[in-house]
């Protein structure tokens, strides 16, 4: 099974087809995805800014990290689930999208970041409070985290604007008489233009 076939099989699952074809389910999921950026993204940015000494400086580092830990995890779970539904329901369009690929790669770096910095920085924040100045390792962790977590939503936004070289792609499978015609729906940028040129009533 090739990647295009696998992608097509994933987005052809009942739930994914429903999400893609229903008018308002897709944007509702996307809005929830975005709202979680408010909770999770905002809290992670604040934690990083605190480690760098740029925000919440009256509050001990341990209070910030321990107080927000659960909520960042809850936010991440909802955000990931919603993102998973969005991505898999449009898999044909996304698998070859360089911004989508970059975003997935950045999510892997999130795991690497956790493996590298969690034991030293995030698991023992009390140690950071006692240090006369915030240790370098915590600042490096914060800068890496800031860069990764700003790049992820930016890549997410750019996904919608990538225009593939060909709009139509036909796949044939060996030993199968049927040809799968993969319809690639227009990107958001193309839709904007279409909307302007059409009668505007959809």
């Amino acid at each position: 099974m090739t990647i295009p076939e696998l992608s097509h099989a994933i987005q052809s699952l009942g739930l994914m087809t429903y999400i893609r074809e229903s008018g308002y389910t897709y944007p509702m999921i996307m809005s929830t995805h975005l709202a979680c950026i408010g909770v999770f993204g905002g809290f992670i940015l604040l934690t990083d800014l605190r480690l760098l000494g740029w925000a919440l400086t009256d509050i001990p580092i341990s209070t910030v990290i321990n107080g927000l830990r659960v909520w960042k995890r809850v936010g991440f779970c909802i955000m990931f689930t919603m993102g998973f539904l969005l991505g898999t329901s449009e898999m044909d369009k996304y698998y070859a999208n360089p911004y989508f690929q970059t975003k997935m790669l950045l999510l892997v770096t999130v795991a690497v970041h956790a493996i590298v910095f969690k034991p030293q920085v995030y698991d023992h924040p009390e140690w950071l409070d006692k240090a006369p100045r915030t240790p370098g390792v915590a600042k490096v962790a914060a800068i890496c985290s800031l860069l990764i977590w700003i790049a992820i939503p930016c890549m997410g936004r750019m996904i919608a604007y990538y225009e593939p070289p060909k709009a139509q792609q036909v796949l044939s499978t060996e030993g199968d008489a049927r040809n799968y015609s993969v319809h690639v729906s227009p990107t958001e940028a193309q839709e904007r233009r279409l909307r302007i040129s059409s009668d505007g009533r959809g």
Partner: protein
Amino acid sequence: MLIENPLNSSELAFPILECFHIVGFAISVGTIWLVDFRLLGFGMLRESPSQLAKDTFFWTLGGLILMLFSGLMLFSSGPEDYYLNYAFDFKMLFFVSGIIFNYTVHRRTVQSDAPGGGKLVACISIGLWSLVIFGGIFIGFLNSTLDIHHI
């Protein structure tokens, strides 16, 4: 009269502005919700709501300014696409309400630090900003009510 908006001469200008818009919203809404979570009894319980609000004040304001100015520039790229869109009206209604609420009722409640108080205020604040986000996403999914280009 035809004035070309420089934002429309580059394919990348619009999405890059949207990235600024999202980062601005993550900072502003994130800091507002941090205080709301505290009012509801979640998050950083060792600090009082007023202390959290004081420490996040400039980040909230900075995020709002970044969000507002990038939003105005996005709007300028095709005003007729927006003001004829119900989702945009919806978003603006809740955005203006959110700003007013945040700097009046919300601010007073947070500063009073009344024990157990402010849960309703926190819920309203979270609700208003959520509706702004939902409105923003739906702008891209609803067609304008009228097509100005065909008049």
